């Protein structure tokens, strides 16, 4: 059926015939089946090809398109780099706004911020920032994700240890509301200068962020200024040929340290101590899978190493703390921080191991795609931003509970999650990673784990899990994380999008999914 012909013609007049299509062949490429959430129930059972795909270039074009959609009451789904299964049509006859042409990037070097369109990705911003002695925090989501979308969606990165969550670094923005009206936030509301996010003028960043972003359910942010940070001044030289490419560290200013400590408790303690000392650029635990991944040249080699008694025994006995030190201001800073780190590690029995002095996946690149390598399917069910103790305790509980779901989940030998300290020790961070074979016959069990068991454990342990916005029924978690945030979401959605046309049914797609399937018991 498609969208009304009048609407199609109107949008074609806005963007030109080259940038709109209702060809089912072209639309098929936008089916979903990608990124975070691939091969989960929502992706497999709800995602549909859009009826029409549009590639706008400017804020004015986005506004005009959305006004057409609003006039004809057509559901639209905006997406910049499509790294989450939320950003695919879940209603028939939807318009998909592919924002890749909106890739303007400007950097204000003196005031240390960048202004990005939704089509700019992290590696592009990082390269331009580093040329100017600045940097941003490339997220675990990958270097290929949209800077703008990812900042609104928390922007979780190991580098946030020092710089905090990017969700707090949103500055001025241009926001096309679900009805096509344009709102300018922060200093953009007064002048064409996006240097500041708070007033004068409206500061609706809380509404924009929601729980962990709205995934296109609240219109389209077409321009955003984001904070950059001063970096050390030496160049990180790219070396190698794919797949072995890396940035060579200037070791007078940047160094890795891999310390083996005696226990998980010691690992947590050294993280706290490092935070207290306010040293380091990043501090994280090394999950054992990473070590086997690093040694293997193909999936089969990984499994030869990982499917072993040695690997099984490492879970309880191997505790590695990976620390990145950067002499931001001078070589002396690096030397000082190294001395402090050495003191801390000595106090806790840490033993320094070998590691390459280059970066493959933190500074400019981030290999999120590699997470699918081991088994063919992956999702993280947990991004706890809470105290480190809380995260560790939660991770141990998840590991225990996960045994009932293994298989179909890959046996990771009781791995209690990947955790790190955040915000100079004031916060902790836990991710709980799950891998499975998409050809497994028992995938419903995996969906129960993702959508039901994990959020129930979150509630039980009081873990503030960002992923609950798209991996749990809001009817369950919304009631538990009060005051009832589902009601607040509902009120915001009703206020901004009364016509209900902006990426319906997000963020209630999990609720809709669990209602549709018989294998999930609705006991909340």
């Amino acid at each position, binding site marked *: 059926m498609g969208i009304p012909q009048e609407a199609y013609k109107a949008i074609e007049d806005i963007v030109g015939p080259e940038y709109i299509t209702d060809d089912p*062949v072209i639309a*098929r490429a936008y089916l979903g089946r990608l990124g975070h959430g691939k091969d989960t129930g929502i992706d497999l059972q709800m995602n549909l090809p859009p009826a029409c795909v549009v590639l706008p270039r400017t804020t004015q074009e986005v506004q005009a398109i959305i006004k057409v959609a609003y006039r004809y009451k057509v559901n639209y789904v905006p997406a910049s780099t*499509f*790294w989450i299964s939320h950003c695919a049509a879940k209603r028939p006859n939807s318009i998909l706004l592919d924002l890749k042409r909106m890739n303007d990037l400007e950097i204000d070097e003196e005031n240390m911020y960048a202004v990005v369109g939704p089509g700019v990705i992290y590696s592009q911003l990082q390269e331009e920032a580093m040329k100017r002695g600045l940097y941003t925090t490339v997220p675990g989501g990958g270097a290929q994700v949209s800077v703008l979308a990812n900042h609104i969606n928390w922007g979780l990165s190991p580098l946030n240890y020092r710089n905090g969550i990017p969700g707090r670094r949103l500055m001025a923005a241009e926001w096309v509301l679900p009805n096509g009206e344009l709102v300018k936030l922060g200093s953009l509301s007064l002048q064409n200068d996006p240097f500041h996010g708070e007033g004068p003028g409206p500061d609706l960043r809380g509404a924009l962020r929601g729980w962990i972003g709205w995934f296109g359910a609240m219109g389209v942010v077409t321009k955003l200024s984001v904070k950059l940070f001063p970096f050390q001044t030496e160049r990180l030289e790219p070396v190698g040929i*794919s797949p072995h*490419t890396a940035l060579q560290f200037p070791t007078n200013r940047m160094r890795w340290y891999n310390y083996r400590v005696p226990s998980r408790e010691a690992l947590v303690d050294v993280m706290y101590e490092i935070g207290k000392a306010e040293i380091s650029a990043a501090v994280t635990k090394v999950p054992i899978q990473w070590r086997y991944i690093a040694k293997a040249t193909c999936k089969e080699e990984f*499994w030869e190493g990982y499917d072993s008694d040695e690997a099984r025994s490492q879970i309880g006995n191997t505790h590695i703390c990976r620390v990145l030190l950067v002499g931001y201001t001078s070589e002396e800073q690096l030397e000082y921080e190294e001395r402090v780190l050495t003191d801390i590690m000595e106090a806790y029995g840490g033993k320094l191991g070998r590691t390459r002095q280059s970066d493959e996946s933190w500074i400019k690149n981030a290999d999120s*795609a590699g997470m699918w390598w081991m*088994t063919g399917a992956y999702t993280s069910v947990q991004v706890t931003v809470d105290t480190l103790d809380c995260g560790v305790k939660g991770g141990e509980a998840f590991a225990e509970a996960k045994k009932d779901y293994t298989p179909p989940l890959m046996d990771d030998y009781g791995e209690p999650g990947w955790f790190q300290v955040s915000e100079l020790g004031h916060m902790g961070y836990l991710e709980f990673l799950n891998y499975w074979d998409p050809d497994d016959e028992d995938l419903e069990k995996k969906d129960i784990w993702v959508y039901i068991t994990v959020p129930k454990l979150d509630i039980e342990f009081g873990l503030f899990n960002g992923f609950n916005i798209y991996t749990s029924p809001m009817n369950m978690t919304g009631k538990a994380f009060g005051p009832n945030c589902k009601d607040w979401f509902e009120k915001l959605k009703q206020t901004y999008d009364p016509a209900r046309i902006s990426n319906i049914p997000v963020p209630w797609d999990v609720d809709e999914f669990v209602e549709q399937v018989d294998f999930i018991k609705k006991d909340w």
Partner: protein
Amino acid sequence: MKDNYEINNYTYDMDRCIGCKGCVWVDHIYMPNVRFGVKCPSNAYKLFDAYAAMGREKIGLALLSGDLDYSPSLLDVIYMCQLCGACDAGCKRNLDLEPLAALESLRVKCVRDGQGPLPAHKKVAKNIAEKGNRYGAPAQNRLEWMTDDLRISQSADVVYFPGCAASYVEKEISQATAKILNRANINFVTLEKNDHCCGHPLVSVGLVDDAKEVAQKNIQALAKTGAKTILTSCAECYKTWMVDYPKLFSKSYEEMDYEVLHLVELVSNLINDGALSLTKGLEMRATYHDPCHLGRQGEPWTEWDGTRGRYGILTPKKSYRRGTNGVYQAPRDILAKTPGLDVVEMPRMRENAFCCGAGGGVSDAYPDFAMWSAAERLSEVQSVAAEAVVSACPYCKKIFRDASEENKMNIKVFDISEIILASL
């Protein structure tokens, strides 16, 4: 015998695509900026995701499942691609998947279903069948590049295989190559009257049965000479002998009874051994363009046959062609040793190089797209303030020269054989 072009062998690879667009973006470690951040010509030209490997794989799966049927736009999606392999190297940085093999096999499916190739490709195939070259030029003119001043032996261990472009259109490349061999005192022969198209235009559009016949004839012609080394100055021929022939016959390259060498490999070795010296100065700021078939696709074919188990684990283990061991350094070493040459790299280089636009049947079926790709690459040449671009493939040279003239870009275009000869 295993059919390496059967699309059903690649449904796993298509289904496991996760949409990270490693097939589109320059390796993030080398990401230069927004302007030159995309390495897939097809998706840079046509911005819809359908024109990237990630989209083509979903469309391919829908074709196999019956959700989509053949249509002009489906054939466009499948054929509007140079098969340059940028997607393949990008994908394999993180995953053990075969996007390029899947794209090639989709074309084979089109042919087997009676839907492909496109009319322009059929004309090229007819030319090859009737005249032995892609242009439809008289077969007897194929050896006209062999002028009297060249010393060509009666028998030798090395067969020079110039390919269609350097035989008919870019004769200066075959002549320069022969002169370099003469100066280095390397005896060589040609296939003479048996010299023929390598068959790459057939493989690349899905006509694998026709390509197999051509391959068989060429391999037999080589065998008749008694030589074991086939030397090319054409990246396309290089890849055809090293990858496509063994793949067509379900063998590993090591099992073929010959060795393939590109001129740049030979010359680089000769220079390193002191057998050849580049002495004459060429005062010029130049940049090197990696031909796709010499660079990221210039790794030998390793045959694999086995089963896939839980988690997609293969038994036996497979040796992936990830673009790591292509011929990248030899041409750079040669240019670096050319006196007076100021060599500068483009932002997209080696396995991330942006295709010249000529390959995969695109210059035949979509000449505007091919020319656009070449102009896009030349704008990158301009971005590093180079006055000349040097490649190692006659198809790159031709399309760059045409694009430079058409767009009045005033960029000098050379094949590396010309640079070597001028510096001897």
